[in-house]
């Protein structure tokens, strides 16, 4: 690519400041809904064809390029139906382990918005830190890198259409993941 082509490509891919802020606000709002366990409202942020994927992470040698595989075991590899089952379980009065509730925050950072070939979809990179407290002294932290596909629907709303969450740990340093990342 020569310099002119590079400039043209960059302009084509340019994303407005307004859009970046809108997407940031979308992700912050999502994080706040998860913090507060407003899971039914969280589901409304998802596109009908959502693919929510938290693959298992393996420590492999550099020469081994099979770090991830879509057919390998995962923590989440969900469509909307699966996500709704998880929410339904969390919201049952007999979810004993969720009462008293977990105290969460989801910290979102390093948000980077990239245009895609589709003018109503953007690839969005971010980092997520989820800090959880339960009982008196039970503290767990989940740290991950996210790549999202965020889409603007016909009605103008932003929706989360794809998410890949890559945890840093190969051995989950927690008994469970009782939230979304």
């Amino acid at each position, binding site marked *: 690519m020569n310099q002119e082509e590079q400039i043209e490509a960059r302009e084509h891919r340019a994303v407005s400041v307004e859009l970046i802020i809108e997407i940031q606000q979308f992700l912050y709002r999502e994080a706040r809904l998860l913090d507060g366990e407003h899971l039914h409202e969280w589901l409304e942020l998802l596109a009908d064809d959502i693919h929510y994927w*938290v693959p*298992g992470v*393996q*420590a*492999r*040698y550099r020469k*081994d390029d099979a770090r991830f*595989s879509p*057919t*390998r*075991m*995962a*923590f*989440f*590899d*969900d469509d909307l139906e*699966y996500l709704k*089952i*998880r929410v*339904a*379980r*969390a919201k*049952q009065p*007999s*979810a*004993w*382990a*969720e009462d008293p509730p977990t105290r969460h925050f989801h910290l979102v950072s390093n948000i980077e918005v990239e245009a895609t070939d589709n003018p109503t979809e953007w690839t969005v990179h971010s980092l997520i830190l989820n800090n959880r407290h*339960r*009982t008196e002294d*039970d503290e767990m932290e989940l740290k991950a890198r996210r790549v999202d596909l965020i889409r603007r629907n016909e009605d103008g709303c932003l929706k989360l259409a794809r998410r890949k969450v890559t945890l840093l740990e*190969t*051995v*989950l*340093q*927690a*008994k*469970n*993941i*009782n939230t979304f990342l």
Partner: protein
Amino acid sequence: MPNLSMKADDKMKLAAKISDFVDAEEGYIDRRIFWDDAIYLLELERIFARCWIFVAHDSQLPEVGDFITTTIGEDAVIVSRGEDGKIHTFLNSCSHRGNRVCFAEVGKTRRFTCNFHGWSYGLDGSLKSVSLPKSYDGRSNFDKAQLGLHQARVESYKGMHFACFDPDAPTLEEYLGDFRWYLDVILDNDEGGIEFIDGNIKSRLKCNWKFPAENFVGDSYHAPWTHSSALIAMFGKSPNIRPERSYHANANGHGWEGGLDFIGNAATLKSPQILEYLREQEAKFAERLGKARSRMVASLSSANVFPNLSYLAGHNTFRTWNPKGPKETELHTWVFLNANAPEELKEEYRRGVMLTFSPAGVFEMDDGENFENCTAVNAGVVTRRQKLHAGMGLDSGIEHEELKGNVYQSQINEANQRAFYQRWADLMSAETWADVPAR
């Protein structure tokens, strides 16, 4: 981490007291076995360095050079497919200064080479080369043949590879005993046997390893209560457990609890394709296994191979509970299916287990919380003095014309948990395998 050493006479004194901690006749368990560092150290020696421990399924290591790393007790090991085509298991610790020789958890290689001084080992653990080998020329006791990585015995049962560090241990077949009859329900309901799906989800629980192991060996009792939220979310109600058509059965501390309802566990996977496959195969299962066992292939059930290999028929998941101190356990989870099952069922099982029995699964999520709290409360000295009750079904033993091993009526029972702790106490008290009674 506890100090991993123990004086010989302290060990003898502790071993002599072990029977005080487990009353398998009346069903009382002393909480000491869940928190005491000295007991934990003795477990590493007398349970994990002595028993047959599951390390890999054959399908995980299909080709020469394929390897995984895992632990036996707290001993890090490499499990690899050697040039002889056989599975080898040996310590992941260099004979020179003890560094790890493999840092990946899975992969393919020709050599395991230490980062420190370049000592390099073959797929069978033998020492092949070192850096600057001439430095060892002359009057030296350097003998490569003597400096390979310490080997475990490896034996297999229908594709499941187990390793054992005790040369005096019985053979794997003897060790499994009558429990093979129950394992066959999973491993041999089809002529192709099973295969593992790629991947291994691992997680850490702040619990003693025995709480989850005993949960799988016999605790159907917890299912309708602990898992109420998931059952209601998926089905609107709890399952119907039928005491007259369900059992506890155990042999040598291994145990299966379950019903003859055929598909109770599989039904929670939310996959019509899986249920259709099972129903299509039912007659074939019965041909291979007989009527009773064919009804266990995916039934409401759970099981544990002593000490730490648990599985769920129907959900098709194996898992191991790897001790990391008396208050911490590393869970390794796999998904399996019949090797001859239609290819599309792989996705059904992989996603179904993920939804139900993985750290984010709607069932398993509640279990970890229980196991951790059962462990953590033992910080209190008065709490520690209170024995735990495990006395359900004391008089439930029956003779059954088909079921093997020690059989008890009703899966709502604690007979298998008592047998698990009895086996634990037998091994912990015994100085050698010769002193361990068959159960």
